[in-house]
């Protein structure tokens, strides 16, 4: 009874402190992907190996707004929703399968977590016999009491910043339509490569 009460209270009021910490969210994502490995996305894969399970840990909608920057408000609700959808598809086709495959047989050391207000950085070291130690930084943001990952930094290089630069360059120099076309093309390329 007490456990049930705690669980329900934690779900309803995560800001009271029962929500997972940044380190726990990071560990959960890595462990989910590790357990899926090359089975990720396959019909025979376990229930946790779905896009939806991965996306519970990711702040895709907030990331979409951040990527667009000053262009976000000019898009209108319909295009905003389209962009979030496209970004989700891009991550599904490009990021999750590759990350799962890699994480399946990699050793990790979990490092410290820095937290400042609603932002946190959890560091994880990957030990590789060829490359030595590579540091992966997971950036998280807390919204309504829930921590979600929005950036991955490989040896200090932010993937989100890199994508933001590309998105904003296209929005400034080309158009939203061109950006959409490029995203669709990239998704198609990833699908072709996966099938091949």
């Amino acid at each position, binding site marked *: 009874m007490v456990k049930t009460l705690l669980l329900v209270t934690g779900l309803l009021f995560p800001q009271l402190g029962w929500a997972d910490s940044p380190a726990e969210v990071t560990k959960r994502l890595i462990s989910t992907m590790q357990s899926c490995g090359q089975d990720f996305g396959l019909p025979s894969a376990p229930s946790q190996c779905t896009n939806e399970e991965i996306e519970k840990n990711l*702040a895709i909608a*907030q*990331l979409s707004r*951040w*990527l*667009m*920057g*000053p262009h976000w408000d000019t898009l209108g609700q319909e295009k905003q929703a389209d962009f979030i959808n496209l970004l989700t598809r891009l991550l599904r086709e*490009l990021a999750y399968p*590759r*990350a799962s*495959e*890699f994480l399946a*047989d*990699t050793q990790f050391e979990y490092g410290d977590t*820095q*937290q*400042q207000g*609603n*932002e*946190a*950085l959890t*560091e994880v*070291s990957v030990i*590789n016999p060829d*490359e*030595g*130690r*590579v*540091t992966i*930084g997971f*950036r998280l*943001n807390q919204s309504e009491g829930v921590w979600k990952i*929005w*950036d991955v*930094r*490989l*040896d*200090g*290089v*932010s*993937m989100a*910043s*890199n*994508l*933001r*630069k*590309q998105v*904003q*360059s*296209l*929005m*400034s*120099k080309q158009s939203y339509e061109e*950006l959409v076309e*490029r995203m669709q093309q*990239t998704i198609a*390329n*990833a699908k072709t*490569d996966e099938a091949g």
Partner: protein
Amino acid sequence: MQKQRLGYIMVLCLVSVLGLGPHTPIAFAQNGAMQPGLDDPLDMLDSPAPAYEPSVFEPFNEKMFSFNIWMDEHILRPVARSYAGAVPEPARLGVRRFFHNIGVVPRFANSLFQLKLDGAAREAGRFMINTTIGGLGFFDVAKNKFGLETSEEDFGQTLGKYGVGSGPYLVLPFIGPSTVRDAIGRVADGAMDPKTYFLSTVEVTATDAGTMVTNAVNERSLNLELFESVDRYSLDMYSAVQDFYMQNRERQIAE
């Protein structure tokens, strides 16, 4: 696996494959680089992202970028592919280590300039060990047997360390991504080359050109597949490379 995981970054890095001087971060992923912290107020998900600001050299840069890509597609990649077919990978890795070994002087000097005395000592030690028992640098005995890691420092980083701003982003023909500061640094590093004091300008230019071409072909041959995927997986290759270069240089200077 490692290649797959780091493929995207490496591919971006290798867009500068035509320029294989000290500015090419070949070994960017070594030994747990420092992560930026949480102190940048612009780098928060809740903060409004800054508006896109193109480099003042953008029109020139875009032309040079296209030129470098064209050169790669039509000259460097075909040559590198043939070279890769003729020379086995271990030999090509040896060639990479040889070129790295002979570029010791700028790394040593810039480690000193930045008061990284252990880095300077490591570079001196590495050069002595690899040049002798490492067969002129074809084998990295210093790292494998003595644990001496390289100290990747150049004059652009030295300037950055002492507070000189990067200046506008710049794409150089044949060289690839740079900034005004790093281009100046590249000239300074070139002036540290000992042969400039023994050979005539024509001889130095010819030697440097030969070295650069051989190094570029060798490096490209070691990264044929990785490089090819960047075009397929980036939305805007020019800005992806620019951002990677700027982030990577910032990280190198902060280390």
